[in-house]
């Protein structure tokens, strides 16, 4: 039976993705901040057909716990076939732009901790010479904008880091996948007015599952964000810097 480790398993997007893996009777190791929340998810995944579901709490910013979690997951699951890193935070940009501590924290959550975890996990995959690691980055990491360049630059760092890893493993059986969702209707975006640009977590989850099954490289979800971001990236900086996006 196949196994998957999900870090940030209580995120809306990860929960929907896990349900699809559960239909394939995967065994799970779920990680997030709260054990109580994870317990609720365990029942849910069982209903969808999950095999064994193990879970553990971890604050990804406690870097010294990363190794321990990976070891425990390996211990419980025997082998890890798939990994999804899905946690993240979107702080109120205006409130934190002048708060060094908060900026550092945002960067740690959305970039540094993710980079450390992916290094660790990819080393494990290298050792067994297989495995699929998907990380949720964001379209926000494709170009810096005044409304969210802290979150955006952290996601951008993750995307570039993953690009490097993918290159390192390009000739092996280890798959490194960058997921770039557009606007998704989740708790993270509860403060935004919903319009037709928003997609459900369920739809994004299908895209993530497909990308992981097919071992894709970079996927924009839904696909049309690739066109949107291509156009946004084409705008000359001279013009872009005056725009309100």
């Amino acid at each position, binding site marked *: 039976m196949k196994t998957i480790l999900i870090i940030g398993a209580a995120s*809306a997007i990860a929960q929907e993705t896990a349900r699809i893996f559960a239909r394939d009777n995967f065994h799970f190791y779920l990680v997030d901040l709260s054990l*109580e*929340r994870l317990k*609720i*998810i365990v*029942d*849910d995944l069982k*209903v*969808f057909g999950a095999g064994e579901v193990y879970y553990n709490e971890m604050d990804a910013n406690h870097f010294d716990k990363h190794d321990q979690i990976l070891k425990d997951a390996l211990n419980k699951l025997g082998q890890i076939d798939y990994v999804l890193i899905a946690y993240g935070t979107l702080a109120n940009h205006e409130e934190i732009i002048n708060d060094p501590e908060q900026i550092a924290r945002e960067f740690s959550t959305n970039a540094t901790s993710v980079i450390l975890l992916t290094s660790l996990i990819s080393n494990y995959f290298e050792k067994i010479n297989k495995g699929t690691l998907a990380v949720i980055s964001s379209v926000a990491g494709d170009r810096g904008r005044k409304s969210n360049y802290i979150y955006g630059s952290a996601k951008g760092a993750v995307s570039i880091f993953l690009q490097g890893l993918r290159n390192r493993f390009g000739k092996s059986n280890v798959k490194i996948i960058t997921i770039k969702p557009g606007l998704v209707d989740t*708790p993270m975006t*509860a*403060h*935004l*007015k*919903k*319009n*037709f640009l928003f997609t459900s977590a369920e739809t994004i989850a299908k895209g993530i599952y497909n990308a992981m099954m097919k071992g894709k490289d970079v996927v924009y979800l839904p696909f049309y964000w690739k066109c949107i971001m291509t156009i946004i990236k084409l705008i000359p900086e001279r013009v872009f810097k005056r725009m309100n996006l």
Partner: protein
Amino acid sequence: MIELNNYLSWGRYPKYYPKNVLHMSWRNEKPNLQNLDSTVLPYAFGKSYGDSCLNKDGYLVDIKRLNHFIEFDQINGTLKCEAGVTLDKILKLIIPYNYFLPVTPGTKHISIAGAIANDVHGKNHHINGTIGCYVQEFELLRSNGEVLTCNEKINSDLFKATIGGLGLTGIITTAKIKLKNIPGIFIDAEFIKFDNLDEFFAINYESEQKFEYTVAWVDASFPFGCNPRGIYIRGNHTAYKETKKLQHKELKIPFPFELKLMNNFTTSLLNSIYYNKQIFREEKKIIHYNKFFYPLDGINNWNFAYGKNGFIQYQIVIPIEDGAFVIKDIMKIIHQSNKKSFMTVLKTFGDKKSPGLMSFPRKGITLAIDFPMDGKETLEMLNRLDSIVREVGGGHYPAKDSRMNPMDFKRFYPQWEYFSKFIDEKFSSSFWRRVSK
């Protein structure tokens, strides 16, 4: 800060905004309601048309993310899940095991808690009654932090008050329902044109004996519409197996903006297209359940087509023996007022009793009509319709209502005072303040 525009109702009228929105996303993390400086009301998907899911200047508790399944007993056909799980998610889970919802309304994008709170009905009411008949148990969070298990035996009064209780008795956190066995995902459906109400009643009489699902679409804009034509729709589940031809791709066309497309001209046109796209008087086909039950779900946010001012659905139930002449009178007034309606639906209710104390359906015929909200003109016409409905002892459906007067409410729901004993002291809604005045 929460974006309050995400918290209107389906009709987008009235535009009542809450003071703030709390979230309850995990069943073990209870929001603190006791110390709030105003009243609260649970809010799910806002698919109620009027103000029964709104709480102007008070708090809403968004329970959409209370969306986890808890237990699916495939042998006994029962499902336990959290309050915000949608009918859509339930169907996707249970259909592969040949189960279906015992009752479903015309959209599947609503929560199970919302379905209970309005004790919703579907095309099978004449046989199966309302969803309340299939609720075995739920847990109810009260504002003092207590979580009460409610069923026919334990807290049974609160159980009955909460079914159809309009969200006023507390927050349902989990619910357990009985499912229904089906032979397959297809419906053996028949579509029969009728030229007038007498024909409708004749077809209806015959259909109710033989079909589990019945409903009629009425062309309320046809020039001689006082005695309207329409299409009678009836069907049964069938064991027919999936073939290439019958594969169903679910449409999801987004309607991006509030843009008023629905006016007298487009409405008449749409009605005429709908009526005439069926060439033969009778058509039989085997269709996917989505097509049969949820034709409107193909377009996301179709309510935006009524523009900024929104629309009103007027849904009433009247005694069957008065049906023909009351509906004719209603149609007459609509024509005199030069209002057109696209979604006009007729269906007879049966006499299966729901445990719900405040449930809307009762034996008779129900009529639902959509009108663009054009201000005073629309409201005045609806007042005229009320007087006809009142005369025959009919009543309105709170889930669709934004304007019925308190007298009519109290007349049709005389149990309202007894019911109010079960309302949680912290809970209220714009609807309740309006009708209990």
